[in-house]
């Protein structure tokens, strides 16, 4: 298979592909972490509320 446009600089394409992969996987992972922190804070708050109601 001949590459289209021989002599084409492959660096931008390789960087774009791996960059998008890093962004997507890293971004999703970061979102999970942020969501976990928020949920844990809500859990602590609701447990405190339960304790103080007694």
């Amino acid at each position, binding site marked *: *298979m001949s590459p289209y446009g021989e002599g084409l600089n492959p660096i931008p394409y390789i960087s774009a592909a791996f960059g998008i992969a890093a962004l997507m*996987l890293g971004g999703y992972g970061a979102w999970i972490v942020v969501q976990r922190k928020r949920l844990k804070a809500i859990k602590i708050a609701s447990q405190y509320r339960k304790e103080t109601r007694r």
Partner: protein
Amino acid sequence: MESEKLHVGMSLLMIGLVALTWTWGLKWAPTELHMGEVYRIIYVHVPAAFTAFFSAFILLIASIVTLIKKESSAGLWGRSVAEVGLIFTVLTLATGSIWGRPTWGVWWEWDARLTTTLILALLYCGYLILYSSLAAGPQRNKIAATLGIIIAADVPIIYKSVTWWRTLHQPPTLIRPGGESTIDPEMRIALVSCMVVMIIVGAFLTYQRYRNLALAEELEKLSYEQTP
């Protein structure tokens, strides 16, 4: 606290594994004869594609377990798998498009595998929209599980029909029908390693997302109990 340290440790391990395999693919794997350096996109495109389709298989298992065991946790697994599957499907399409430009001269071609991946992305989107649009409860889990089974059963048929329709992708390079492989052994090892690591990363993300969904469900139950 202990378990959080474990999860942080596992996250760092995942990042390390991905960095190692990508470095392997980018620096140490030999250059391809015809495509040149741009072929290295294979080390992210093919593993992402494999994980996207593997997620459909895991969705099938989660859906069957949901219908048999009628546990809400199985339903949450299904949703997590669908989300992660969508991420990898979109990644496959993006990297496939980027690879297509220098290889085929166009950003998009109606190639069999890319087209099937596009349809799978739409199906994952539909699954997640359906899940979000239904009221929480056992009925939602049943409906989502039914759709998960339909999607998983339909994917091979979609793939076959689109393959017969047209194909521009190179023929399978890992294993040919006769059993031989056309890929260089060094490249094959690098590619298989990337695929294994990507599956592990996909499983890890699915698990972490499931934990969040389970925690959210637990908090919802708590709020019902506390409501006077």
